[in-house]
């Protein structure tokens, strides 16, 4: 009984991290209409930057995050202005190919600089800290912290997109870029701000990922896959749905791992396929704000 409870708790706590991976992918697809297949690799790249910062400055990864955020935003803006705004987006395949090329460059660049050895961010004593609210049940403080950060990020994003003037613009552009441009919405500015939100999820997601798990130059693909599955299950347009979907995938992984460690990722994919068959529109389809 306590085993099951522990598995469920671990799944829920891990779900927040998966939701953060998915949040950025979902925004890029929903607003900029790009299937960003480099999303996982950008996460890994940011994790390596966090690793270098935390290693060379001998600071906690959480402190490194404060430096990583402006770096990531600046990097994203540079990419946006330097490459994305010059790409012909009338054919959706073109930006996808650009993303693919970017992914290959990131992977090989990281391989060249860091080799294949897996790295991890060292958060110190907090990693071993756990509380036991009931006998036999252990809750990792770090995992709780990750979930709390995920919930906070989603709450802020939900408020921006459904309660702010900028959010109205974002949703209009998401409905129809052409109509929004026609009536006078500044598409370029909307894209830049939305992409800054995406890069914020990348910085936060990268640090939390690096603390929670090992990563190497080729870890991007598996993170991308998780993000994709969460976006598809969660449906676009409702960010709390993204969190719930993250928890669904994470729970499946934890249940799979409890049977046999090698079943962990497979179980996540199976649940994803199952949801796709039963509810192809996602568990939480688009709602009107």
């Amino acid at each position: 009984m306590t085993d099951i409870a522990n598995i469920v708790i671990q799944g829920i706590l891990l779900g927040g991290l998966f939701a953060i991976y998915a949040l950025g992918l979902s925004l890029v697809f929903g607003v900029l209409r790009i299937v960003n297949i480099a999303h996982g690799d950008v996460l890994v790249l940011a994790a390596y930057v966090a690793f270098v910062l935390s290693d060379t400055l001998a600071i906690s990864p959480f402190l490194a995050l404060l430096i990583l955020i402006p770096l990531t935003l600046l990097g994203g803006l540079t990419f946006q202005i330097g490459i994305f705004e010059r790409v012909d987006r009338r054919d959706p395949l073109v930006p996808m190919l650009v993303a693919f090329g970017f992914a290959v460059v990131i992977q090989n660049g990281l391989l060249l600089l860091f080799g294949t050895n897996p790295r991890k961010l060292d958060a110190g004593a907090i990693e071993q800290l756990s509380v036991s609210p009931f006998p036999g049940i252990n809750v990792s403080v770090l995992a709780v912290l990750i979930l709390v950060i995920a919930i906070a990020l989603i709450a802020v994003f939900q408020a921006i997109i459904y309660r702010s003037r900028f959010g109205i613009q974002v949703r209009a552009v998401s409905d129809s870029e052409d109509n929004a441009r026609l009536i006078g919405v500044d598409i370029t500015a909307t894209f830049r701000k939305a992409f800054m939100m995406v890069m914020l999820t990348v910085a936060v997601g990268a640090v939390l990922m690096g603390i929670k798990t090992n990563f190497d130059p080729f870890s991007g693909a598996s993170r991308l896959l998780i993000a994709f599955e969460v976006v598809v299950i969660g449906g676009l347009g409702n960010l709390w749905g993204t969190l719930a979907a993250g928890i669904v995938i994470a729970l499946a992984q934890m249940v799979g791992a409890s049977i046999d460690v090698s079943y962990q990722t497979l179980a996540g994919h199976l649940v994803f396929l199952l949801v796709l068959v039963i509810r192809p529109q996602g568990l939480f389809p688009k709602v009107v704000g």
Partner: protein
Amino acid sequence: MTADHSQPLLEVSDLHLRYGGLRALDGVSLTVNRGETVAVLGANGAGKSSLIKAIYGAEPYSAGQILFDGVAVTGRSPNQMAQAGIGLVPEGRKIFPSLSVEENIRLGVAIGGHDGADIDRVFEIFPELKERRNVQGTLVSGGQQQMIAIGRALMARPRLLLCDEISLGLAPTVVDRLYDVIKDLVAGGMAVLIVEQETNRAIKSSERYYCLLEGRVTAQGLSAQADQDEITRAYFGGDHD
């Protein structure tokens, strides 16, 4: 504003626009004065919508010049035009399904680039929108969607309002209502450029008119002195009876 009030608010000179080999606008010139309602008449495909879109910066033109309030605004984007003080009520209304009625109207604030008008002012003009403010924007009636499109343009506090086929597909009583609103706006000092297929309505509601045929101005004058036969000729071309 220290602008010279004797000069036109909008001055379009010799505008050329083509889609591939097709000439949509072939040297169109027109003016709109402050506080004036000007109608552009013409059949389907005469270039009316192209003209409105070109003025608003939504359609790139190959040659010509546009002055707004004495300033050259040639080649600016719709967003820059909105911030300069031009509002667009687009053909087909362009209401966004993910936004509520109120959010569709508030979108106009973001377009104008400043604090915008008071939304209560829009709700005063169109009280039925206030009642349905939380309904999805595309679920209200066609007439109410047209009201949203006008309200959205007003939120950016324009000095010139471009109205593209606002009567299209609406009941005559609703169209009367919309034109009454436009009359009030003009009385309040706004200039309005209306594009209409429905000639009688446009002539009745305007002070001056231009007729477009195949991208050229074929007739113009004071609406009060408009001669129905001349407009029909200019509208359909000389070949028709």
